[in-house]
């Protein structure tokens, strides 16, 4: 090969100094003697340059970029030949930052996909190709010691979340979870979480129904509503408590809250409301006596109380 480029380092920190040399060896002697190396840089930069002819006849040109502040620079080493500029070799310089620690790592156990889904925020752009890996291990204590390892979870390209399948989980034991970010300039890891998957179950909201009036039941009192609800089917085995909120559909009144309700009730009478008034009701539930997250509020149920 007639000429080739050597870089002090292909990937450097933004602002660092970089030197590049282009060496034209004697293989190019058929080109005659009096020629100069010409560098083409994209984007155009004007580095310091030093050309020297080495004892063994090779010609070397070294350029120095004191503070590289472009994340990508394409270097071409060229020679004038006849009336054309001949490109002999090319090299790409990359500059960026080592990854900062990913943050806001949070995980939810999804009972539908039966997997633990964790998401995080990557931190500022490093300008370099940076890979993220969700790492975890099973622990028998508060995550001080590792009991069993869990395979790395590699997110799909560009994704900021990863899903650990059920077969790698012990739902009722603690596991330590963190995110590792890695690029050519370094590695960083997020703060570690210590959790048991069942303690971070994502509950879907319960379902609220109006109770159809039936001959067997006396009509509801004025200012009362009869309803029933049931928790989200896949979570029936989880002991839960629920909260009901209600407000008149019209007007400015805020939500009223009824808390500590059981997970399911065949029949519930909500009283103390304004008679013949349209109400909006919503309910949410959470795993209870054992730790868990509140579900979102259920879709609204619109009911009107009877006249006086």
């Amino acid at each position: 090969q007639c000429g080739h480029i050597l870089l002090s380092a292909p990937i450097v920190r933004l602002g660092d100094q970089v030197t590049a040399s282009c060496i034209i060896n004697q293989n190019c002697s058929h080109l005659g003697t009096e020629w100069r190396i010409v560098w083409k840089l994209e984007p155009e930069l004007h580095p310091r340059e030093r050309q020297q002819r080495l004892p063994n006849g090779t010609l070397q040109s070294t350029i120095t970029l004191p503070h590289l502040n472009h994340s990508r620079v394409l270097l071409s080493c060229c020679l004038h030949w006849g009336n054309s500029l001949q490109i002999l070799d090319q090299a790409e310089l990359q500059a960026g930052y080592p990854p900062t620690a990913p943050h806001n790592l949070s995980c939810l156990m999804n009972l539908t996909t039966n997997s633990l889904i964790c998401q995080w925020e990557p931190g500022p752009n490093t300008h370099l190709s940076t890979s993220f890996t969700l790492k975890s291990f099973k622990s028998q204590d508060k995550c001080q010691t590792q009991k069993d390892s869990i395979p790395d979870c590699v997110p799909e390209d560009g994704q900021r979340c990863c899903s650990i399948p059920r077969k790698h989980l012990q739902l009722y034991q603690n596991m330590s979870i963190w995110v590792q970010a890695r690029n050519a300039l370094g590695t960083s890891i997020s703060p570690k979480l210590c959790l048991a998957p069942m303690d971070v179950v994502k509950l879907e909201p319960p379902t609220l129904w109006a109770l159809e009036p039936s001959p067997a039941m006396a009509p509801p009192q004025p200012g009362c509503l009869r309803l029933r609800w049931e928790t989200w089917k896949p979570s029936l085995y989880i002991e839960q408590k629920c909260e009901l909120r209600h407000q008149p559909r019209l007007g400015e009144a805020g939500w009223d809250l009824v808390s500590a309700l059981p997970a399911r009730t065949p029949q519930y009478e909500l009283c103390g409301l304004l008679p013949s008034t349209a109400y909006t009701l919503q309910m949410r539930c959470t795993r209870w006596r054992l730790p868990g997250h509140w579900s979102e509020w259920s879709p609204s149920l619109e009911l009107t109380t009877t006249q006086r």
Partner: protein
Amino acid sequence: TPLGRARSLPQSFLLKCLEQVRKIQADGAELQERLCAAHKLCHPEELVLLGHSLGIPQAPLSSCSSQSLQLTSCLNQLHSGLFLYQGLLQALAGISPELAPTLDTLQLDVTDFAYNIWLQMEDLGVAPAVQPTQGTTPTFTSAFQRRAGGVLVASKLQSFLELAYRVLRYLAEP
């Protein structure tokens, strides 16, 4: 008294166990429903003879009865029983592509539950020196035997869990 030692069982452990029993019961019920729908194998009573020839054991919980509750031995029987069913469920592998996910979930949940009880026994310092090893599990030589085995194992597991649930709830009572 057996109950004295029960105070040594953390409430969160008992609540988790109760939740796990309910979860496994739900998994087991789904397996039974699918075996009935897909293969008309709906009643374990119709498979008693086959069960004998296959040699599907029933795990004892004699130390967990409310009349003669011996906590350490009861925990041990709970763990051994779950360990036995873990092995039986493993032997059913290849039951059918449609049932495989349900069977896998059931087996993972039983394994988790057995493991939690083992850890609690270790915490109480009552865990046997050596983890139990799987005895000879039945070999299912045909698709029908695996499905019939599935019905039998699921039904024996449900009655085992019924007993377990009763004693755990008894222990969890304040």
